[in-house]
């Protein structure tokens, strides 16, 4: 049975229940992964998966069943319904559901699974060779992954949506060692399915390999507050981690204090600051037409001119907060129910050039690139893969990688310059509630933050 047939069966089954809401997902996916570690190709692997889930909302409680086998869908739907019924006295709800029929929705640039393994390996061999021709480089890790997914959504209101999704991801890490010191530099890129977008990186990889070696002799930053300038990649990570997660309504909707903090209309930054999230922004890794609850994608202004103007919703959080749907419910695969996630998140560009931005900084730090970032709502930390001192308006000596930390609310207010050079970073994968890595993109122009705390000795 293919997933379309199974989808029609499941649609019929769930339409018969007396529940507030039932939905189902079925998917068929294929993926490739290629890893180089050290000098050689370490592993090359192809995976195929079929599976699905049924989720039921009955009297305010959720039941969820996931499975690999597309047989006995009736039993599975019943199990989800029974579980939901066991959660008596819950107060979960969804708003009015508009039925949508859409087939052959293609949110991809290409199907990377159609490219022969030999071509993929050839490109990665070239990149690997560049790293290994760099003197003093200890080792390298290259991870390539691609996937293609046929994805089907049905719900009890009569929606039937068939989508195709694809993803390409490349991560290259160069590791330099000397004495007992180890330093690494990484590069991450991705695309919604177009293999061509990870081609032609030869110069970039050469440059990052040399940088890893240089970092062995770089000094560490002294831990204190600095004026910090973030490059588009790191600023994108910052807005994703520090602010984006807090805009996810599932963090907010059942938390009266946080609701208070995140009241729409509150001032979060200066009048120059606009922050956007939207799957409706086309052609990026976080782009799609319908989310995993069958809701059409939007482009949402989270902050407009410094004022909090929107947030990201699932059907449940929108209904609970009595706000507009935003199309941000996503699940990493059929084993998980959809939860509120970001898509393509960015700070809109303004007019200042990078050189003007650093011109009047006497002593500051310029941070680029990223290792990662996490947040605990109020506090965030994020780590820069590259750091340089700024002295008297110029980029000066390189530093070891630094970790930046701060309080979201003061830090957003402390952004005092936003550049004119927006770039989107397609190399990120976002993790939340055990669902990782979800394809997202984030971006920003260069930004300047006053009084930013840098860890160190």
């Amino acid at each position, binding site marked *: 049975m293919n997933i379309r047939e199974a989808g029609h069966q499941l649609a019929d089954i769930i339409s018969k229940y007396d529940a507030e809401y039932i939905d189902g997902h079925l998917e068929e996916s294929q*993926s490739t*992964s290629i890893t180089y*570690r050290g000098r050689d*190709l*370490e*592993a*090359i*692997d*192809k*995976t*195929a*998966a079929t*599976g699905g889930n049924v989720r039921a909302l009955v009297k305010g*409680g*959720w039941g*969820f*069943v*996931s*499975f690999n*086998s*597309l047989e006995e869908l009736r039993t599975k739907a019943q199990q989800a319904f029974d*579980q939901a019924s*066991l959660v008596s*006295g*819950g107060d*979960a709800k969804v708003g009015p559901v508009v039925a949508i029929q859409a087939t052959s929705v293609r949110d991809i640039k290409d199907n990377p699974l159609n490219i022969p*393994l030999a071509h993929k390996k050839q490109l990665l061999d070239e990149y690997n060779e560049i790293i290994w021709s760099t003197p003093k480089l*200890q080792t390298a890790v290259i991870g390539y992954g691609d996937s293609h997914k046929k994805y089907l959504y049905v719900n009890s209101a009569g929606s039937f949506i068939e989508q195709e999704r694809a993803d390409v991801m490349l991560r290259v890490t160069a*590791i330099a*060692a000397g004495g*007992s*010191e*180890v330093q*690494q530099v990484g590069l991450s890129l991705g695309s919604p399915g177009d293999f061509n977008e990870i081609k032609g990186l030869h110069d970039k990889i050469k440059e990052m390999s040399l940088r890893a070696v240089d970092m062995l002799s770089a000094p560490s930053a002294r*831990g*204190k507050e600095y004026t910090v300038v973030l490059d588009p990649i790191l600023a994108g990570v910052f807005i994703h981690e520090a602010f984006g997660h807090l805009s996810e309504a599932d963090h907010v909707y*059942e938390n009266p*204090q946080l609701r208070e*903090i995140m009241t729409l209309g509150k001032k979060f930054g200066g009048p120059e600051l606009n922050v956007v999230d939207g799957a409706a922004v086309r052609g990026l890794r976080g782009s799609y037409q319908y989310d995993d609850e069958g809701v059409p994608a939007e482009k949402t202004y989270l902050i407009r001119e410094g004022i909090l103007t929107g947030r990201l919703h699932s059907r449940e959080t929108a209904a609970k907060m009595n706000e507009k749907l935003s199309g941000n419910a996503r699940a990493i695969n059929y*084993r998980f129910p959809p939860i509120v996630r970001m898509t393509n998140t960015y700070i809109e560009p303004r007019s200042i050039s990078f050189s003007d931005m650093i011109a009047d900084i006497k002593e500051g730090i310029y941070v680029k690139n990223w290792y*990662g*970032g*996490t*947040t*605990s*709502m*109020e*506090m*965030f930390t*994020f*780590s820069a893969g590259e750091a340089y001192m700024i002295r008297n308006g110029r980029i000066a000596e390189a530093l*070891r990688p630094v*970790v930046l*930390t701060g*309080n979201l609310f003061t830090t957003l207010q402390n952004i005092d310059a936003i550049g004119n050079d927006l770039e989107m970073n397609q190399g990120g994968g976002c993790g939340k509630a055990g669902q990782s890595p979800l394809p997202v993109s984030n971006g920003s122009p260069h930004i300047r933050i006053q009084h930013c*705390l*840098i*860890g*160190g*000795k």
Partner: protein
Amino acid sequence: MEEILDLALKVSEAAEVFWASSEETPVSFQANKLKGIQSKQSSSVYLRVIKNGQLGYAAASGYFDNQKLVDIAIETAQFGMPGKFDFPAPGYFPQTKIFDSDVEKIPVSEMIDLGQRLIDPIIRSTQGILCDAGVSKETISIRLVNSSGSQAEYRKTTFGLGVGGTLIRGTDMLFVGEGQESCHPIRDAKAVTEVVLHQLELAKNMAAAPNRQLPVIFTPDGVVSAFIPSFMAAFNGKVVLQGASPIGNKLGETVFDTRFSLYDDPTVDFAPHSRPCDDEGIASQRTALVENGKVQNFLYDLQTAGQAKAKSTGSGTRGRGGLVSPSASAFIIKTGESTFTEMVQDIKEGLVVEQLMGAEQGNVLGGDFSGNVLLGYKIENGEIVGRVKNTMVSGNVYQLLKDISVSREAKWVGGGVFTPHIFCPALAVTSK
């Protein structure tokens, strides 16, 4: 499975089929209320072949065609790494106990009740706190067959419960939490809630941390967030083989304080990360990684051991797509003499670190960590006086662990690490 093995052997020299299935029932509470019940069934099959001396892989979940699976593995073997090992012949596995049929018998209603008992004492104690809680049971079944005639088969149960609380006052946020995991059912919610209640008690007052070097005690959770990511990498035979581990060439040398000993041990009865054999059918063993400060061994799977001319430590673990690589199963850090209370009493001014945020984002390979103290306390004149915030601690694992003391008490954190408290006499503290 045997059919896949037979098909594979028609077109390759050697093969292995690994089959894993699981059934998991998580019950979740959100914002002090029961939120949902889930049931997750899954099964996957992983094929590994050696063809013309090269390794090939294929994996499938759900519906698949046996011949197609074999074809994919053969296709990838064209590009695969040379196989540096033979699949193991039948052997002896330790009789580690990891299955308790009581886990399967626990009804969902009892799990719901347990979750409620995790939350109730906490919301009674602290006005305005919001708790998320989870109670989960899982049964997994593993089967492995290979062309050397080896067969392995086991079933494992795990039961876990955990609760986390968030308290927001103004824009100040406090996070507390605790969890437990076992192959037995856990019916005592109190052991978990008491930890959380104690955290709330200690965090009642705020205290300021200065900007300088301070003595710091890492609690077991603190040890896991600050040190363990670096150890996971440094003792991984693959990282060692690449020359990227700072201790890779220090075998037999004393690199750490003599009070520091570290083991990898998947043979502890009813510990959730225990198993009779690894995912390649190699018997589980307790491996000394550091004894009295001296580096003793690294963790290997078959392929990495073959490359390094070492022996597999039974650390072969299937990751994404079923690829095998060496991985720690459960880290055990040896306990010491002093109690946590004595450690605190000896400090005039210092910190206790329970949770670090972002510590794993730095140069983990080099051992550098730098994290924001998500939950931590200030010590003044031998007493905990309150909670610190807007504070970072930074250091290097290899520098710090040259001079430590280790507590007598220890606990399991998240099922994968058993560790005491670790005291470091001087650590860089940056505060705002």
